[in-house]
C-alpha cells in the first residue's frame, strides 16, 4: 500500500502510547516505585532536576519512571510541568559559604581552611562491576550500616560554614574582579520570562548553563580544555552540599527559610592577562542542582571561556554555547525530523528536477 493513510492518525497514536506503557512493564521483573528511583538512582534524579530546572526529587523520579529512564524525556516532562506553575516568590541571593557540606575539595591547594572533605565520591573507585550486588542486598545494607561508624571515635562535627578557597586569592588581590554588568540596575535577567539576546548578561548565561544538558556542556567544555580554546583551568574548589532557600517573609519582610536544596558548585581559576597588561587569575563559576560534578566543572570552564575578549573557538563564543546547550530544545529539534516533511521534500524535488533539466539543456540561465 503506497498511499499514506490520511485518516487513522488518532488511533495510531493511541496504540503507540499503549505499546509504550506495556514495553516498560512487560519484562516480568518487579515494577519500580518512584521512591526507589529517588533514593537509589539519585544521581539520575539530580541530573533530571537540573536539566528540567525544577527541584522536585519525587516528581523527577516519577518522570524517570514514566520515561523508562530517558533523562532527556524526563527532564522535558519536569520542564513542561514547571511551565504551568505560578511563580509565588523569588528567593533571596544565597552565599554558598553557608553550604552544609557533603563534599568539598580543592585542586589548587594541598591544605585548605576547613580541610579537604572527600565525601561520597566515585572518583577513586575501581570501575569493576561488582557482582556481589547480585546477592541479597538487604543483608549487605545491614552490614554496611553496622560497620559504617565502627571504630570511629571522637567524630569532629563539621563547621556550619567553610571559607571559600578563592577568597584567599581575592584577599591577595590576585583575582580579576569581573565588572558588574548592568550596574545601573541589579535586576537579574530571567531566561524563563525574557528572550535572551546577545551579548547576554552573565546572569542569563549562568541560568542557561545551569539547566543545560550535561553532555552538551561537557562536549563544549572538553573541546576548550583539549585545545580548541585557551582556558587552562585549575579547580579552585568543588563543593557538594545543601544550601538554604530563603525568601522574604510576606508579612515581616525578614528572610525566611523555606527549605534546602542540594547543589554542586565549581570554581575554576585560570590565568589571564588583564587589560592593563598584568597577569591575574580569572574565575569561572558553575552551579547546578544536585550532585553533578561533571556538569558544574564544565559550566565553570565555559563561563570563563565565554568571557574571552576575542572568541577564537566555539566554546568561547557566548552565542554558540548558550544557543546549543539546552537539552530540551536540542533534543526536540533533533527529533522533529521524524515528522513528515513530504511537502518541503516535494518542493525540493521540483527544484532538483528543474536544475537537472537546466544542466542537461546546457543553459546557464533559465530565465525566459
Amino acid at each position, binding site marked *: 500500500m503506497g498511499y499514506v493513510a490520511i*485518516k487513522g492518525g488518532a488511533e495510531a497514536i493511541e496504540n503507540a502510547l499503549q505499546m509504550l506503557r506495556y514495553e516498560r512493564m512487560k519484562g516480568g521483573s518487579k515494577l519500580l516505585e518512584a521512591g526507589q528511583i529517588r533514593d537509589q538512582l539519585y544521581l539520575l534524579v539530580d541530573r533530571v532536576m537540573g536539566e528540567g530546572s525544577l527541584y522536585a526529587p519525587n516528581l523527577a523520579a516519577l518522570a524517570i519512571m514514566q520515561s523508562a529512564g530517558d533523562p532527556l524525556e524526563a527532564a522535558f516532562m519536569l520542564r*513542561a510541568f514547571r511551565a*504551568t506553575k505560578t511563580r509565588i516568590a523569588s528567593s533571596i541571593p544565597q552565599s554558598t559559604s553557608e553550604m552544609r557540606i557533603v563534599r568539598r575539595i580543592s585542586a589548587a591547594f594541598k591544605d585548605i581552611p576547613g580541610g579537604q572533605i572527600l565525601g561520597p565520591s566515585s572518583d577513586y573507585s575501581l570501575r569493576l562491576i561488582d557482582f556481589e550486588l547480585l546477592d541479597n542486598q538487604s543483608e549487605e545494607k545491614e552490614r554496611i550500616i553496622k560497620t559504617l561508624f565502627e571504630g570511629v571515635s571522637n567524630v569532629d562535627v563539621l563547621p556550619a560554614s567553610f571559607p571559600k578557597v578563592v577568597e584567599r586569592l581575592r584577599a591577595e588581590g590576585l583575582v580579576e574582579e569581573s565588572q558588574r554588568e548592568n550596574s545601573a540596575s541589579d535586576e537579574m535577567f530571567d531566561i*524563563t520570562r525574557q528572550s535572551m539576546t546577545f551579548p547576554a548578561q552573565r546572569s542569563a548565561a549562568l541560568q542557561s548553563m545551569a539547566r543545560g544538558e550535561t553532555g552538551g556542556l561537557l562536549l563544549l567544555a572538553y573541546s576548550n580544555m583539549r585545545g580548541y580554546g585557551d582556558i587552562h583551568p585549575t579547580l579552585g574548589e568543588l563543593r557538594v552540599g545543601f544550601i538554604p532557600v530563603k525568601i522574604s517573609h510576606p508579612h515581616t519582610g525578614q528572610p525566611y527559610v523555606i527549605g534546602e536544596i542540594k547543589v554542586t558548585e565549581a570554581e575554576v581559576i585560570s590565568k589571564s592577562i588583564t587589560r592593563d597588561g598584568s597577569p591575574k587569575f580569572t574565575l569561572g563559576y558553575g552551579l547546578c542542582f544536585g550532585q553533578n560534578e561533571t556538569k558544574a566543572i564544565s559550566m565553570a570552564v565555559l563561563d570563563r571561556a565565554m568571557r574571552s575578549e576575542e572568541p577564537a573557538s566555539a566554546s568561547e563564543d557566548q552565542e554558540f554555547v548558550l544557543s546549543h546547550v539546552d537539552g530540551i530544545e536540542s533534543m526536540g529539534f*533533533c*527529533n522533529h525530523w521524524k515528522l513528515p516533511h513530504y511537502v518541503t521534500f516535494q*518542493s525540493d524535488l*521540483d527544484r532538483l528536477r528543474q*536544475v537537472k533539466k537546466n544542466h542537461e539543456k546546457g543553459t546557464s*540561465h533559465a530565465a525566459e
Partner: protein
Amino acid sequence: MRLSEWIDANDGEAAATKRNGYNFAFIDEGTKRELRRKILKAVAIPGYQVPFASREMPIARGWGTGGLQLTLSIIGPNDTLKVIDQGCDGSVNAVNMKKFIGKVTGVRITTDTTEATLIQTRHRIPEEKMTENQVLILQVPIPESLRTVEASERETRRMHAEGDYSRMWLYLYEDIVNSGEISIGARYPVSVNGRYIMDPSPIPRWDVPKLHMAETLYLFGAGREKRIYAVPPHTRVEPLEYEDAAFRVEDFNGRTCRRCGSTASYLDEIMDDVSGNRLYFCSDSGFCDKNLEQRGAQDGLRYTQSNT
C-alpha cells in the same frame, strides 16, 4: 468581529473555566497577555521577528510549540479550530495538537477550511481562500531567513535593523549561476511590506503568493527560537527574485489529483510499491475531501490498492 463581541465571548465565565485541571487554553493568563502584546507588536511591524519568552509546552520543542502558544493565547471558547500538518487534518502531529488543544479548550474542531475561525498549520497554507474573519497560525522551525547566509543571531539582527540584505541577494545570484535558477524549494525568502526579509516557514513556493495582499491575518510562531512575527491583511509579500530570474512555484506538469481530480492544488508524490508508478494526490486533505464530495463520490477516482 467587533471588540465588544470578542470580549463578551471571551471574558465570560466560560473562558475562566478550568479544563481538566488546567487553565482554559492551558497557559496562564499572564503569559497569554504577554503573547498577545507580542502579537500586536508583530502585526504593527510586519515581517519583524519579535522575541518572546517561549514557555515549555507538553509537546516537544521543534514540534510546533510556537504555533501552539499563539493558538492558545488567542483562542476563545467560541472559536472553531482546524489543525493541519503537511496540509492534512489526519496527520499524526495534527491529530496530537488537536487532541491537546481540544482537551484544554473544548472548542469545536473542523476539517473544513471555510468553517474554521483559527487554523494552525505546519508547512502549508490551505488551498481554499481564507477571509478576514479567520487567522492562520503557522508553525515555524527556523524563523531567520538569513540563517542560510549568517549563523549568528546577533549578526542577523543587525542585518535586519540596517536592512543589510546584500548577502542574501548575493546568495541568490550565486545560486542562479550554479544551478541555472534559484534552487530554493520550500522556505522561500520573501520581502514583507518592502522592509523586512522574512522566512514564510517551510511552506512550498506554491503557497507563497497566498501571503500577498491577503484578507487573512497570518501569525508565525517559533517556540524553540522564541520568535513571533506576522503578516497582517493587505500587506505586500514579495518573493525575492531578479528581473531576469523570476520566482516560480512548483510545476506539476499538468498532473491531477488521483483522488479528486483537482488540477489546482499542491500535490504529494506517492510511490506505488505495487506498480512502481508515481501517483499524485492533493496535499490539502480538507480541500480534496470537499472537491470529491462536490464531484459526487461515485465519479471520484478513488484510489485503491489494485489501482495501477
